[in-house]
């Protein structure tokens, strides 16, 4: 090959490459929806199209934090609907990125429990719609833990027999909440003196931990590597599926109330379609899919009532009444106190 031929070939290849890369940048779908993988029915695109004639494209994010970073840096461009936990929905609204929910276009809001329409971060569901909700507590192997755990201190100051066999959630708000609840403080505590106490408690607790774990804690229970873990209720259910000896308990000091929500972005050019999508999700049958398959409680009265009784026998936390659920405190955006939280969490993680 001569040099000239080589150059021509290179140029041709480059042109072809550019064409190949540029293809498929614009989305042909009516709606782009970002959700955690596996958090909606896999055939949702087909059923939604059959019901409304609209095309949707579902993309996945791994964590709230990542999709939030992306939405903030890009102003939300390209996305129409996102699923995020409530403190993040609150931030999206605070930053002016969330579109008000058009109540008239979402008649299925009537399916929600009354408790789900008066949540403190968004009373009246003005900018967000709750999709799933639940508690954070202790998930444990009843065959390996001697006394039934009932307190956060069972996790933070474990009995000798389970030292080195406990895990805690690593995400800063839930990590802090465990200490705050144990001390009887608010999960949104801002008083530096109280936060100092929580920090010291959590640094002591670190010495008895196997690991911080947000993702594989239930498989650690199944393998027997851990016997008591800090867990979200719905996630503990996956462990229960694998091993009947696994149980979930909300400690007597209480829990936080976590809520995963649906938000429509202000930058969306397909807001009508987005509202139709929310309405579709809130349909009793579609919303019940989440309860049956991902084993999370949904705040949809019609959907919960349609569930088979056997489900709540196998997973007792599924039966928790909304009135009991909303007794727990919601995680709220901390505003400027976030700085104190992140420093404390860094200090805990750096402690040895």
């Amino acid at each position: 090959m001569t040099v000239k031929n080589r150059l021509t070939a290179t140029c041709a290849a480059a042109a072809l490459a550019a064409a190949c890369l540029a293809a498929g940048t614009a989305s042909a779908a009516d709606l782009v929806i970002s959700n955690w993988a596996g958090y909606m029915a896999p055939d949702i695109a087909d059923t939604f199209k059959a019901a409304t004639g609209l095309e949707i494209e579902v993309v996945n994010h791994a964590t709230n934090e990542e999709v939030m970073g992306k939405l903030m840096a890009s102003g939300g461009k390209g996305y129409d609907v996102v699923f995020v936990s409530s403190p993040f929905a609150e931030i999206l609204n605070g930053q002016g990125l969330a579109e008000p929910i058009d109540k008239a276009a979402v008649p299925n809001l009537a399916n929600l429990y009354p408790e789900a329409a008066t949540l403190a971060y968004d009373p009246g569901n003005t900018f967000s719609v709750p999709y799933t909700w639940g508690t954070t507590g202790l998930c444990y192997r009843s065959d390996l833990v001697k006394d039934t755990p009932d307190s956060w201190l069972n996790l933070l100051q474990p009995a000798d027999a389970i030292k080195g066999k406990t895990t805690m959630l690593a995400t800063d708000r839930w990590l802090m909440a465990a200490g705050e609840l144990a001390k009887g403080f608010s999960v949104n505590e801002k008083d530096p003196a109280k936060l100092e106490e929580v920090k010291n408690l959590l640094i002591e607790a670190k010495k008895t931990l196997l690991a911080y774990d947000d993702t594989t804690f239930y498989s650690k229970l199944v393998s027997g590597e851990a016997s008591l873990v800090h867990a979200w209720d719905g996630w503990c259910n996956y462990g229960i599926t694998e091993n009947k000896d696994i149980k979930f308990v909300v400690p007597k000091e209480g829990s936080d109330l976590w809520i995963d929500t649906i938000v429509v972005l202000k930058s969306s050019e397909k807001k009508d379609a987005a509202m139709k999508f929310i309405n579709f999700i809130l349909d009793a049958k579609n919303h019940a899919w989440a309860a049956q398959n991902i084993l999370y409680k949904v705040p949809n009265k019609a959907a919960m009532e349609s569930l088979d009784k056997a489900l709540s026998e196998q997973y007792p936390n599924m039966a928790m009444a909304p009135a009991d659920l909303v007794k727990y405190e919601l995680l709220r955006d901390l505003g400027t106190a976030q700085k104190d939280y992140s420093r404390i969490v860094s200090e805990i993680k750096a402690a040895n």
Partner: protein
Amino acid sequence: MNATFSSKLPGRIVLLLVFGFLYLPIAVLVLLSFNDSGLPTSWSGFSVRWYGALLANTDILRAAGNTFIVAIFATVISTVLGTLLALGMETRRRKSNGLEALAFAPMVIPDIVLAVALLTFFSRLGLAMGLHTIVISHVIFDLAFVCSVVRARLKHFDFSIVEASRDLGASGWTTFWRVTFPVLLPSIVAGALLAFTLSVDEFIIAFFTAGAGRSSITLPMQIYSMIRFGITPEVNALATIVMGVSATALLISQWLNRQQQVP
């Protein structure tokens, strides 16, 4: 005969041990691709069902295709630019700290800073995002690694042979292809392998610069998004296939090569 054998033996033992270390977790990963349970960390019986699930999973297959496209383009561009940059830096008479810092910077900028910076930048420019913006972004760090490897080789390169070749009347191109390039080739190959490997595995920058749609999801993005509900052994099955196919393709091409050379 005996002498060459004994002088080769320590080398073979070293290679055996190092490759043993490199492939130990790979053996586990392959084993897990046949694990019946979906849990990543416990074994519950042999099954090929994850291979079936993989073939039916168009999302993962498309993501794997996208990853390959991105890695190939990023590798080609960064290998060319990185090699040229290395040549430029090493043939300069005077060292420039600014240039050195610029070449080091992509390696030390935290991924998240680069990711947020690029997304902010591309959005302000109003640029449509997709695989091409991932390529642009990956070239940044890939080229720094290629440049670094090629420069290491150039450190003791005797540039007087380049001048000698030109004094003998060879053109710049001829000198490059006949003199400089053959010397650089091993480091270019090493740099390209490095760039490809880095690009294939990169997650956070790709996630930020991919745009919103499904069409530009890469494999690491797909896999990380599975974290919440557990990464199923489909991914192990895919990795097993990717490594199996790559290894087979290489060995076949080598074998064909040898057949040609030995008539």
